[in-house]
């Protein structure tokens, strides 16, 4: 049976090193939740605490109603897939998958039946006699999944399971893992530093940085309404552009960016009116949300093209604005554009993000 996973003010200290800080999260049952962040942000430590491989320094972890801080890993009804798969090197595939049943004293026939069932689903029936060292990366991955599947766990944990696979296999396995999650009917907690994996697979994403959860929400929320500069910069490829901006009271609350004045949709940024007049702001805009125009429209930023990169179906145009800032714009590949050309960049007001430079917090209404 799938369970909610609740983290309540969870902290982890290694000596004086505070790696997980006051994490408060609730993962609803049956959801695929991703802990996303750069390396060293505490996401793996958090996952290991859920698994029971690390103790919790302060705070509580609940599976459903049950507090599991002091429950041994084997009693938590979790299954885990490790980055290096951690298959038992001395056992063949059958015994690897059967191990959890074996230590629980499952009768021979039942064990045999369950393992064959799982192997069938994962299409590894022909590998049951092999040792892990004779398997390819993708096959090892499947065995690791099989080991989790045969348990039918309440919570399924994965620690960067795709990072050891080559690029093509990774894309295939992404959809397989998602199907696997649906078939298993469990709550899945997935750790990755790859935002593309997180965006494509998750129901919910917790973006972590420096031991703290920066934002917790659906992939669309995280992408469209990043709550601070870190999340805005971390999510999205190519990354969001950031331009220094300030408020101009004289023109009725318009935004001064470089030499241009931009209109701000007031209903999206209700906090803007309370800002001090000299507040330093940061305008964030994704390369996809900028148009290039030939003539000088009002509220457009003038600049010169310094670099054009062809990505296949799109082109990335790197522009040096008149104020010296850089702006990357994504245009269709068939758009003719040359280095040295003078262009005007038009920012779509609905797609813009505004942040307070000092705190990094978004000014968008939430």
């Amino acid at each position: 049976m799938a369970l909610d996973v609740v983290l309540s003010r969870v902290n982890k200290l290694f000596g004086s090193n505070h790696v997980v800080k006051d994490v408060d999260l609730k993962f609803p049952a049956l959801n695929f939740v991703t802990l996303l962040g750069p390396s060293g942000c505490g996401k793996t430590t958090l996952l290991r605490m859920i698994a029971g491989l690390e103790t919790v320094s302060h705070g509580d972890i609940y599976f459903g109603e049950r507090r599991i801080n002091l429950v041994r890993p084997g009693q938590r009804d979790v299954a885990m897939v490790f980055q290096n798969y951690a298959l038992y090197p001395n056992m063949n595939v059958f015994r690897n998958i059967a191990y959890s049943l074996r230590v629980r004293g499952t009768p021979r026939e039942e064990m045999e039946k369950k393992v064959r069932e799982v192997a069938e689903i994962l299409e590894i029936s022909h590998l049951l006699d092999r040792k892990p060292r004779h398997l390819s990366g993708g096959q090892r991955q499947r065995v690791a999944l099989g080991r989790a599947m045969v348990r039918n766990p309440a919570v399924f944990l994965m620690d960067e399971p795709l990072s050891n696979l080559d690029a093509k296999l990774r894309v295939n396995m992404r959809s397989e893992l998602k199907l696997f999650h649906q078939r298993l009917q469990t709550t899945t907690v997935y750790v990755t530093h790859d935002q593309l994996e997180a965006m494509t697979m998750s129901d919910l994403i917790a973006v972590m940085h420096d031991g703290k959860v920066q934002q917790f929400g659906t992939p669309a929320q995280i992408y469209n309404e990043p709550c601070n500069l870190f999340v805005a910069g971390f999510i999205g490829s190519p990354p969001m552009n950031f331009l220094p901006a300030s408020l101009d009271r004289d023109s009725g609350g318009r935004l001064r960016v470089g030499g241009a004045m931009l209109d701000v949709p007031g209903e999206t940024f209700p906090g803007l009116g309370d800002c001090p007049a000299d507040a330093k702001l940061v305008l964030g805009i994704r390369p996809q949300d900028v148009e290039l125009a030939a003539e000088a429209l009002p509220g457009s930023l003038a600049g010169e093209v310094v670099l054009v990169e062809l990505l296949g179906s799109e082109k990335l145009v790197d522009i040096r604005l008149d104020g010296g800032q850089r702006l990357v714009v994504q245009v269709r590949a068939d758009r003719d554009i040359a280095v040295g050309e003078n262009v005007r960049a038009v920012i779509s007001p609905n797609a813009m993000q505004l942040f307070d430079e000092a705190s990094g917090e978004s000014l968008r209404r939430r």
Partner: protein
Amino acid sequence: MSIRVQRDWGEIVRRAVRYVVLGAVTFVVCFPLIWALLTSIKPTGEIFTSPPTWLPKELVVEHYSALIHGKPMYFESGSDYTPDTSPTQHFLSWFFNSVVVAFGAAFISVAIATLAAYSLTRFRYHGRRVIPYLSLLGYMMPPIVLVFPLFLVIVDLGIANSLWSLVFGYVSITMPFCTWLLWAFFRGLPVEIEEAGLIDGASRFQVFYQIVLPSALPGIIAAVIFSVIVAWNDYLFARIFINSVQNLTLTVGVMHFFEGVHVNWGLMMASAVLMTLPLAALFMFFQRHLVAGFGAGGVKG
């Protein structure tokens, strides 16, 4: 149309030279063994013929049969001959002693070293980083420095002149090195396989003997072979700790074939062959593991 294979004469010559050089080195290294084997199957009269015969003119097994049946050979003609002092009578018990002492010491040494090494790599406590290096240092200490203090300890324990004294002596010199070897080996085992076992519901002890030990088998075998060889070939400890003839090990016992001016070379060589064979067989059988074990130690240690 068939493809004509081009001959690279330079490569053929290089290969020939390589084989000649390697063959010569192998012959030099193996010569004592070959000579011992040849001498052991020659009749006593032929051993000292000049010029020496390479292959025995007459093939005999009398030296081997004398060792195995404990038959007095040379000594029956001596004036001070008494049936009890013929060294050949003790050969089998020396052999047995050597086996007991070598394998007993190896078993104890590796059992302790395995647990020590596992603890050093998996648990956090003060000194866990320096102990492996210190134990390697301990192994570098020449045994002659250790033998007299050890002897005093053994006398105090009241086990002098028993096989136990040798077992403890050998454990004390092999265990530190085995600990270091297995420490290097365990460090190379990913800790995740143990964590996976814990999550699968196994206890720490189950994880240790169902997952860790089988994975560490190459290292353990290497440590056993190392310990057996050290104990099997030891002369110093056996010479000093043991003083009754029946408790000797092969290395010291065989010295009894030197009796003043009478040296029975046929018996000596037959003993040498019988001493070498078991270890050579062990070596060949486990060679793969030995290389893997020392390799892991070499790269990661």
